[in-house]
């Protein structure tokens, strides 16, 4: 199994605060992975490191064997946790921007998905609701044929019907070369599409396991196990 994302003793400190400490993970191709953790556990920091938006304090992170940079952006499709389109842009302008930026962007596919979600491409981006903005960005990100999709909280702000559609899109897009990493704390909704989960707790990897192994060992859903882990955290 060739690793698409690998970290070695990865540590990131903001001042004295350790956002991530000594993280060692290795994610192979063709997996759908949940990056789970409470607020402030380091999920977004890890994803930003993978995108080269942050640089490690110690250790390293490798995407397809190389450090994040221009080369890796070609194969990584990233959904940030906030919107970044300018106010003047219409939805169709966003599509054009992506088509310009990324060779692997499939504009026809994006158009179909917007249609399925009932989003008007002629509308200015700023006039869309928060949830609809998130949908547009997810459509753009999922319409690339990337090797690694990094989705930071893709389902937090959208309605349940759209959530189902998004999960369906992830399954539909699945291919053996593409790995999807989804950071979220809404586990119940997504656990049936996940292969593996990574639990982060206070910047450390608490557990790496397959969803089936957690269910088989505990007789509980990953969501229930996660809640127990978080509860422990509160006690200390």
């Amino acid at each position: 199994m060739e690793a698409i994302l690998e970290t070695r003793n990865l540590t990131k400190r903001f001042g004295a605060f350790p956002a991530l400490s000594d993280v060692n993970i290795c994610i192979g191709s063709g997996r759908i992975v949940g990056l789970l953790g409470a607020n402030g556990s380091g999920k977004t920091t890890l994803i930003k490191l993978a995108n080269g938006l942050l640089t490690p304090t110690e250790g390293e992170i490798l995407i397809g064997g190389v450090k994040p940079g221009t080369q890796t952006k070609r194969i990584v499709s990233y959904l940030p946790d906030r919107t970044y389109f300018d106010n003047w842009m219409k939805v169709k302008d966003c599509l054009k921007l992506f088509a310009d930026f990324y060779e692997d962007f499939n504009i026809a596919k994006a158009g179909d998905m917007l249609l399925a979600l009932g989003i008007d491409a002629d509308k200015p981006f700023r006039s869309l609701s928060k949830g609809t903005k998130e949908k547009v960005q997810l459509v753009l990100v999922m319409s690339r044929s990337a090797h690694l999709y990094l989705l930071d909280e893709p389902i937090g702000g959208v309605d349940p019907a759209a959530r189902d559609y998004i999960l369906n899109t992830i399954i539909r897009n699945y291919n053996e070369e593409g790995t999807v990493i989804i950071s979220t704390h809404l586990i119940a909704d997504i656990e049936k599409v996940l292969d593996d989960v990574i639990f982060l707790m206070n910047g450390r990897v608490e557990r790496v396991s397959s969803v089936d192994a957690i269910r088989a060992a505990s007789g509980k859903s990953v969501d229930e196990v996660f809640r127990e882990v978080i509860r422990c955290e509160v006690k200390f």
Partner: protein
Amino acid sequence: MLWKFTNDRPIYLQIVEAIQVGIVSGFYPSGSGVPSVRTLALEAEVNPNTMQRALQELESIGLLHTQRTAGRTVTEDREAIEKLREKLAEDHITAFFAGMRSIGIDKDEAVKILSKAAKRADTADAADAADAANVPGIAGDQATATVPKEVN
């Protein structure tokens, strides 16, 4: 197929069981082709790797076969399917007795209640029989297994 999953067990095991019911009930007839991993994964809204694992499991116990060109097919070994039916029936019965025990009814009494209910069902008209098909259990599973596939 109607796909529903519970939280307490691995999903691939639940898929294995659902497809077993599908085979026994004739939803996936003996010798017929099974949809692709991707199609089934979308239908059940699960991870394709999970579906793959379930189908491999069914292959390893001989209920599905891989044809080199035509994908997977249901076994033509009717004896194996019959054995599976018996095993599933056994599971339902075990669950039935366990349920009865949990409300303080022992085996003998449970059998009495069951045969009384069976007699009632015999004399009931067709409308009642249709109602009975909605009761969870063997009849219910067959009823749900024949629901037409959702078009994606």
